[in-house]
């Protein structure tokens, strides 16, 4: 983050390799989408794919399988994109390389609210889950940031992670405690929790879209200011940035995106962490470019994880969240190993 | 007043395969105060730690009375040789008397409780360091200078003939620096304890040391009584600093007066 070019310097219009990276990501995206459409409990050949996608008149079984998978794939894409952007936002706001919804316990906060909704208010539709999840995510985020940023050194990765871990522990105990006496809640909640992207429908996409748009628009507006924020609060203030306002908006957008994604897809961790770090490694720390590419990258990771989960879990399916934790956690470890001790 | 020979033979040591000390041969004068000085990163602290067996040498050896310290039983060695690290850790909430009592570890067997000798040693150490009044206080409540006295008291309770100290005056106000060095001198005079320490301040070193070791780039470049070896040329060589050496009006030891680019 510190290697950011100072604003006075003449800047290149685009970061190095930007075009090449975008092209590569788009190709990967295309491949992952095709894989998601083709693979599953039943593998579809190229012909069936083409029929399903471009020939609405063809009524073969293969074509209809592909059509069913479209909603799921689209949902996976926007969900991954939302999580990628959310990760980039949270990392910038906290100036902390490992801020990720799952590490901060935000997912569990969303879970607790959803389970309370199911248990005490008999809520059962996704359009209602989403609000509960977002509120739960927000409150948890505020709580964890609050504890993690106490003290002189501010929100160091270690403090945030520990605050997140402690909060997750309490919340998940509560989730279990609410579930155990209520078998029906347990059933419904389990369905939500392993919902992954497998159960996604066009309805989920529809519910998600407004949240996605609001989150992305805010993200676009605050991106330049986040670049300044990366240089520290004093410098940012000196550059004329209203740090408090930027923080609140960026954090709001970040939580909105991941809360909505969690509400609809269940807890999926580490995508924001993974996507943001991969992209930053390639194109550098400029948030304006980082954010859209992290969105692309997040979408690819989620869709591919979903496809791989279909294989590993067969005959059933493996939750996306399990896979992303498995590839994401080593990144957390790598970052920790590389980090200088003072910054931890 | 027991005397010991303590010497290093062709000592080579360092961290992470990086050699910091290269072929160092020192012989610590028994029952005297020796001070090791040198620029930052020259290896003086590494030398002290290697002599106190905190770092295992790559080659060469450290001999106490002719025996390699790495071949001695840790507890036996700890009865003769003590070290006060630069930043020891204070367990939360521990009282002064308790911490000082931990210095008795090498003298106690694991199963037995405290003996009269243990209590005596702790009481004596507290008295000597003037911290009796704090005996039941938690260390967290004490000031930096008081804390350092507690740590030295712990090393005293260990009742070793040789005591190493790694920069015992760092982070202390000048008042406390002088106080600590005075107390160490008391210790040396009363019990004949051989004291070896690393110090930053050249002038205090020249005043309090019976014997000085000067280290540069992991090698010993000069040793001897301060008044014999501290010269402008040596300081220039060791610290790359121009200076004048005058006589300390208080102690008649060498006093260096640095020469910068301004105010000449």
């Amino acid at each position, binding site marked *: 983050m510190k290697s950011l070019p100072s604003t006075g310097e003449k800047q290149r219009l685009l970061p190095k390799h930007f075009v090449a990276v975008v092209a590569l990501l788009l190709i990967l995206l295309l491949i992952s989408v095709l894989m998601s459409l083709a693979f599953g409990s039943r593998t579809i050949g190229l012909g069936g794919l083409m029929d399903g996608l471009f020939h609405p008149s063809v009524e073969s079984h293969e074509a209809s399988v592909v059509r069913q998978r479209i909603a799921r794939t689209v949902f996976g894409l926007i969900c991954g994109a939302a999580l990628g952007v959310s990760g980039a936002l949270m990392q910038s706001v906290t100036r902390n390389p490992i801020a990720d919804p799952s590490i901060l316990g935000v997912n569990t906060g969303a879970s607790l609210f959803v389970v309370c909704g199911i248990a005490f208010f008999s809520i059962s539709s996704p359009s209602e889950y989403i609000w509960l999840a977002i509120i739960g995510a927000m409150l948890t985020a505020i709580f964890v940031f609050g504890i993690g940023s106490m003290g002189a050194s501010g929100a160091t990765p270690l403090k945030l992670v520990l605050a997140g871990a402690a909060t997750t522990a309490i919340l998940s105990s509560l989730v279990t405690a609410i579930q155990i006496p209520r078998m029906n809640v347990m059933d419904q909640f389990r369905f939500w929790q392993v919902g992954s992207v497998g159960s996604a429908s066009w309805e989920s996409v529809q519910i998600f879209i407004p949240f996605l748009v609001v989150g992305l628009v805010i993200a676009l507006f605050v991106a330049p200011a986040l670049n300044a924020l990366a240089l520290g609060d004093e410098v940012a203030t000196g550059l004329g940035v209203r740090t408090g306002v930027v923080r609140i908006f960026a954090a709001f957008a970040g939580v909105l995106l991941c809360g909505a994604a969690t509400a609809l897809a269940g807890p999926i961790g580490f995508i924001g962490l993974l996507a943001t770090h991969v992209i930053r490694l390639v194109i550098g720390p400029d948030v304006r470019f980082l954010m859209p590419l992290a969105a692309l990258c997040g979408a690819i990771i989620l869709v591919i994880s979903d496809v791989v989960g279909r294989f590993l879990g067969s005959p059933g399916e493996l939750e996306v969240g399990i896979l992303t934790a498995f590839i994401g956690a080593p990144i957390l470890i790598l970052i920790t190993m590389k980090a200088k001790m003072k910054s931890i | 007043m027991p005397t010991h020979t303590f010497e290093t033979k062709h000592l080579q040591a360092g961290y992470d395969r990086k050699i910091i000390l290269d072929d160092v041969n020192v012989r610590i004068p028994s029952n005297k105060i020796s001070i090791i000085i040198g620029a930052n990163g020259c290896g003086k602290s590494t030398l002290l730690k290697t002599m106190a067996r905190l770092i295992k040498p790559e080659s060469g050896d450290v001999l106490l009375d002719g025996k390699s310290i790495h071949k001695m039983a840790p507890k036996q060695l700890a009865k003769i040789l003590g070290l006060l690290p630069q930043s020891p850790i204070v367990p939360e909430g521990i009282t002064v008397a*308790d911490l000082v009592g931990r210095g008795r570890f090498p003298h106690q067997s694991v199963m037995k409780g405290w003996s009269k000798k243990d209590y005596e040693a702790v009481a004596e150490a507290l008295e000597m360091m003037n911290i009796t009044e704090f005996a039941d206080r938690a260390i967290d409540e004490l000031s930096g200078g008081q804390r350092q006295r507690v740590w030295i008291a712990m090393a005293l309770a260990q009742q070793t003939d040789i005591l190493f100290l790694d920069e015992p005056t760092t982070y202390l106000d000048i008042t406390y620096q002088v106080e600590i060095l005075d107390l160490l001198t008391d210790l040396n005079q009363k019990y004949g304890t051989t004291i070896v320490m690393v110090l930053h301040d050249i002038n205090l070193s020249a005043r309090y040391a019976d014997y000085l070791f000067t280290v540069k780039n992991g090698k010993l470049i000069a040793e001897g009584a301060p008044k014999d070896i501290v010269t402008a040329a040596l300081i220039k060589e060791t610290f790359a600093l121009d200076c004048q050496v005058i006589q300390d009006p208080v102690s008649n030891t060498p006093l260096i007066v640095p020469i910068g680019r301004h105010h000449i």
Partner: protein
Amino acid sequence: MINETMNAIIKARKSRQRRYIFVTVLLAVITIALACAMMMLGNTIYPVRDVVRVLFGETVPGASFAINEIRLPRTVAGLFAGFAFGAGGYIFQTMLRNPLANPNVIGITTGSSAAAVFCIIILHTSSTVVSLAAVIGGLVTVAIIYGLSKGSSFSIGRLILIGIGIQAMLNAFISYLMLIGKTSDLPTALRWLSGSLNGAELEMTFPLIVAVIIATPILIYFAKHLEMLELGEQAATSLGVNTNQTRAILMICAVIVIALATATTGPIAFVAFLAGPIAQRLVGVGFSNIVPAGLIGIILVLGGDLIGQFAFETRYPVGVITGIIGAPYLIYLLIRINRKGDI
């Protein structure tokens, strides 16, 4: 003058010794009371007389089955697992000089859980092999976390972060196993997610009992060395402690008992984390608190289990209760540490 000082020191030390003994005895009494309650309470309440008769081999209609088959195994598992978590957690916290560095937070119990669940669901092994696997899983997890966090300079912070990362992976692995497992194996395996004394069997507890009986004297023997380690690597070395050897022995003992406890009851949340600090509070510092910490571990487990069984309409596993009690304390501790500004 010297004599006065000496007498003052002796007095202070004796009074603290008395406090240590008093607290330890008190804790032991509470432990016994809880164990009795565990034996007496249930669907039917049996008087002490019946419990004693059953324990001495007499057959009391009704009581014999409930006590021998259900309550005794449950109580024994709680006793030994509680002690193992409490004492083992205390060893870790003291050795690493950080209350946060305990088997729960850095994921050693998760390592044991993952190995145990793997054996149950994939390999369908006997309970002995499950115990062994849990121990190996715990030790390997420690080795990996420690190895990765060593790097150029060791730091507790890095160790904790890496531990949390490893824990996330292991949890994902456990979830995966649960998903592909047969439904019939799930109840057994579920125990590894939140600890529980339900369905405890004496036979399964046996390895833990042996380990605790062997490890406890070793831990007590090294308690003084552990006190010296608290002063830091360098000070401990200069006091004559062979730090590497001491650390290895203590670490291995602690991991083995904790791993076996995990294999028996699952990772009962926060017991390993809470016991040490509570013992410190009650007994004070300056003495090694291994035994008090172990007793508090037992009290937490048995007490939590009794609350879980009888305080509410529904029965909750002990892990849920200790989780709800323990996590707020963790947060309180974090707030305090953060205010002070050093982790």
